[in-house]
């Protein structure tokens, strides 16, 4: 494995070597490595780029890694990954995309992920986006995630984009059935002239369905962020969304929350806060001996932890 591939895999999937268990590593538009397990099958799609990941009923304590690496400047791809999670499962899925752009052409990855989570299953889905490279070509990622949570299921989606992505448009839609729960935790940092847009749309269709969408972001330099969230309460349900942003330098952050209750028993809450780092936080850390720059760095790091 070359150094760039190794670095990117470590950044996006926390991998130091080839993982144990099921995995599918895609590099520069091609299959780089795959392993299936007794309970988790990975099948290449025949009609379009991408894979089907099929998790058998009652699969517990297993993980799937499906990182994507782009090291070739100018590569543009859309990849369709469909997850079929059986009933009564408990699995962790680690996705993520790392782009190293050493050239002048834009590299672009659009990962379209769909999840069908079976009854009473639990899924932890971790997605990390990262860019690097000395080239002038843009690094672009436009992930789409479509989620169906069947009765009694639970999914936690941790999505992180901390560095190096020039432009991103992330769309997540979800439909939550009876007694199912979706937790989304998003962390974004943009710098220089980067642009990040997030769009969450959750339909709480089931009785006692619930969701909690929490976004924390930091916008630095001249970067721009747009956060949109929409929660539709269509039954006896509970929805909460929160957008908490730190704005620095000449950046711009816009939060557009929308809540729609179509049922008198729907309970929906949104909280949004955008502001600079609180002066008293900087002062406190400075009284402990940190410089203003160090204090700022620690506050941002803690906020995005």
């Amino acid at each position: 494995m070359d150094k760039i591939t190794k670095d990117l895999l470590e950044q996006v999937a926390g991998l130091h070597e080839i993982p144990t268990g099921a995995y599918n590593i895609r590099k520069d538009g091609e299959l780089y490595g795959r392993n299936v397990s007794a309970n988790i099958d990975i099948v290449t799609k025949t009609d379009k780029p991408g894979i089907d990941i099929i998790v058998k009923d009652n699969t517990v304590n297993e993980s799937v890694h499906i990182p994507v690496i782009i090291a070739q400047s100018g590569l543009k791809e859309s990849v369709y990954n469909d997850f079929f999670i059986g009933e009564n499962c408990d699995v962790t899925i680690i996705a993520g995309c790392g782009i190293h752009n050493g050239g002048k052409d834009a590299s672009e990855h659009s990962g379209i992920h769909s999840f069908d989570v079976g009854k009473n299953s639990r899924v932890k889905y971790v997605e990390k986006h990262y860019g690097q490279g000395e080239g002038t070509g843009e690094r672009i990622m436009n992930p789409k995630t479509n989620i169906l949570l069947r009765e009694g299921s639970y999914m936690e989606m941790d999505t992180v984009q901390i560095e190096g992505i020039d432009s991103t448009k992330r769309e997540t839609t979800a439909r939550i059935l009876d007694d199912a729960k979706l937790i989304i935790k998003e962390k974004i940092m943009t710098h220089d002239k980067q642009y990040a847009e997030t769009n969450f749309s959750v339909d709480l269709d089931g009785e006692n369905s619930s969701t909690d969408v929490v976004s924390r972001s930091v916008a630095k330099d001249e970067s721009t962020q747009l956060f949109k969230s929409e929660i539709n309460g269509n039954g006896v349900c509970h929805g909460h969304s929160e957008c908490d942003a730190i704005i620095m330098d000449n950046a711009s952050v816009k939060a557009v929350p929308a809540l729609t209750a179509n049922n008198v028993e729907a309970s929906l809450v949104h909280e949004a806060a955008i502001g600079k780092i609180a002066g008293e936080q900087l002062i406190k850390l400075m009284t402990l001996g940190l410089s203003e720059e160090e204090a700022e760095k620690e506050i941002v790091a803690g906020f995005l932890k």
Partner: protein
Amino acid sequence: MLELKNVSYEVNDENVNKEIIKNISFTIDERFVAITGPNGGGKSTLAKIIAGILTPTEGRIFLDGKDITDLSITERAKNGISFAFQQPVRFKGITVKDLITFAVGHSITTTEACSYLSEVGLCAKDYINRELNASLSGGEAKRIEIAMTMARGTSLSIFDEPEAGIDLWSFQSLIKVFEMMHEKSGGSIIIISHQERILNIADKVIVLANGELVNIGSKDEVLPGLLVDGPGCEKLISKM
């Protein structure tokens, strides 16, 4: 030793200059020094001036003979000044362990964190990984603030109303913390307080009212006057 020479602090309030601190001079070399006086008298402002958070409009400040008036908050912290806020600051994502680490200046083990947190009546195991965010009660945050100041071990520590909000934890424990801090670092501890029990342990008491230094001396010299006809509300003081 801390020395203030003719320190004044003015703010411009709707185009009217208002003097919050008026020409104050004193030296502090004692173990415990209490600053007391009525609310709005300038006590917290003075503490912030000493810590470098506010810059005096007039006068100079010396720490161990060195003029620190133009030093930043960070430089003063590095020169040996610690400041425990009256209202502890809340963060998002920064843990108690992170903060004690910053205070000590190097990474610490749970055992080390325990040596500070146990002094303020908190179990390190329960607290080190907790964020210092709004989920902590006022009393918990206050005790962590005190533990951070203790962990710094500097030659001058300033506590702004340390007793406020720590009701379940006794005054005696707080006083023990001050004694222990002095034993370890040998420096001076300035305590802004209205509490007679705190004033009673002071080697020197400074009374501020309307931004002026109205009295300074040993507790035996200052306290009787303060309780009889001092600037504090007699009725309230009688209920302490």
